[in-house]
Each structure stands twice: as C-alpha cells, then as structure tokens.
C-alpha cells in the first residue's frame, strides 16, 4: 500500500470511495506538484472525482493533515518526490 514511488514522483493513496472511483489503492504521480493543484490534477485524471469525493475529503502528507488551498489561492506547500499523500474520505469505523 505505501510502497516507495519511483524517482520524480510522490505516492498518492486512495481509500474508500476514492479507491472505488479511481480503481486503485495507490499510484505514483509526478513531483513536484503544488498542493493547490492536487485536486485539479486528480480531476483531470478522474473526471467527477472532485465533487464526488475530494470536496468532502481531508488530505494528509506524510501522515500529517494539511490544508489544501482552495481554488484560486496559491498556497506555498509543494508535494515533493517521495512524499506519501492520502485522500481521506469521511471515516466510518466502529
């Protein structure tokens, strides 16, 4: 699940509905990528994923929750080679 991505990539993990929509548990994506562009990059790859999952999900980078800058905002965070990024849809343990 959290295998090391190839050089020049970060690894993105998909859970629950994000995994169903992408048909994947994880994949490498090209780094660096500004965090503010993550959702539009994913929308490009998986049309519809933004409204169906991303907008109601949280995001972690290397297991820390991060704020994804909203559309139009620049933000300074950049996803780097080797980072582990995860899309965290609303949880349902118990």
């Amino acid at each position, binding site marked *: 699940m959290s295998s090391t991505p190839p050089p020049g990539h970060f690894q993105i993990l998909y859970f629950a509905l994000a995994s169903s929509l992408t048909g994947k548990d994880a994949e490498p994506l090209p780094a660096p990528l500004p965090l503010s562009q993550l959702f539009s990059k994913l929308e490009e790859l998986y049309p519809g994923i933004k409204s169906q999952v991303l907008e109601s999900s949280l995001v972690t980078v290397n297991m820390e929750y991060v704020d994804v800058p909203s559309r139009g905002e620049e933000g300074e965070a950049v996803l780097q080679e080797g980072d582990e990024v995860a899309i965290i849809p609303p*949880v349902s*343990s118990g």
Partner: protein
Amino acid sequence: MADSQEQEQQWELSEEGCHVSLTHDNLNVNTIMDRVRSPSAGAIVLFAGTTRDNFAGKPVHSLTYTSYHPLALRTLLSIATSIKATHGLTGIAITHRLGPVPIGEESILIAVSSPHRQAAWRAGEQALEECKDRVEIWKREEFTGEEGVWRANRDGKMGVKVTE
C-alpha cells in the same frame, strides 16, 4: 489491499497503559480485558461494537472494513493516551477488525480500567465516540440486490453509492 499475507497480520502500538491494534482476525474479549486488567483497578468497562444486519431497515448482507493502517494506529493511540489522562484510567485498549466481518460479529472492542467505575463508564463512551469521529477506517456495506455503499459516520446518513 487485503491480500492473503495480510490476513495473518496484526498491527499494534503501545505506550504506558495504552494499547491499540488492527487485525483481520476475530476479536477476543478476554484478550483485550487482560490488556487493561490491574490490581489497582476496581472496574473494567468493555464495549463491543457488532455488525448490524440492516441500515435504516435495508438488509445488509456483508460488511468490509479498510484502513490507512499506520495513520489509523497513530490516531487510535492519540485518542487512547488523551482519554487515559483525562479520566485517570489505569489502562485502555482499543482494537478494530479489518477486512470482511460477518453480520453479528465484533468489529471494535474498547476496554478501559480505572480505580472506580464512574470514570471507566465515561471514558469508554468517549473513546468510542472519538474513534467513530476520527480514526482512518472505512466501512463498506453490501446490500442484497443493490450497489454497495461506503458509510460516513459524521452524517449518519446513507453514504455514497458505489458503481464498480
């Protein structure tokens, strides 16, 4: 994600009277009670969450849990340590089952021990609510003759339909 190798595995973290784990195996009530058992405790409260056969009256024929294992463990441990401190517990242990869980079986166990029962009751309830709120685990319910649904605890409503 749940390949055959994983079936045998268990993931766990421990820290001073706190123990959390994830497993594909059946959950064992005695094992988790023994984790928190102590001569200085006067009470152990055990919560067992079991898988229900319906969602709002609709028959569910099976459930599967997935997780972001390392982060879920970290979150579980942070809940455990904070609740132990808040309620002055002797011990706290939380374990969640992953993969397919047959209807009517335990999906989560929480055991807390404390010198007196009041703290244990309160801590047990709070631990469950925080788990349901925060731990990076997801439940998928399969309905008879319909598409499966990823549930979301936060809204208590039907989740989003899955087309695969």
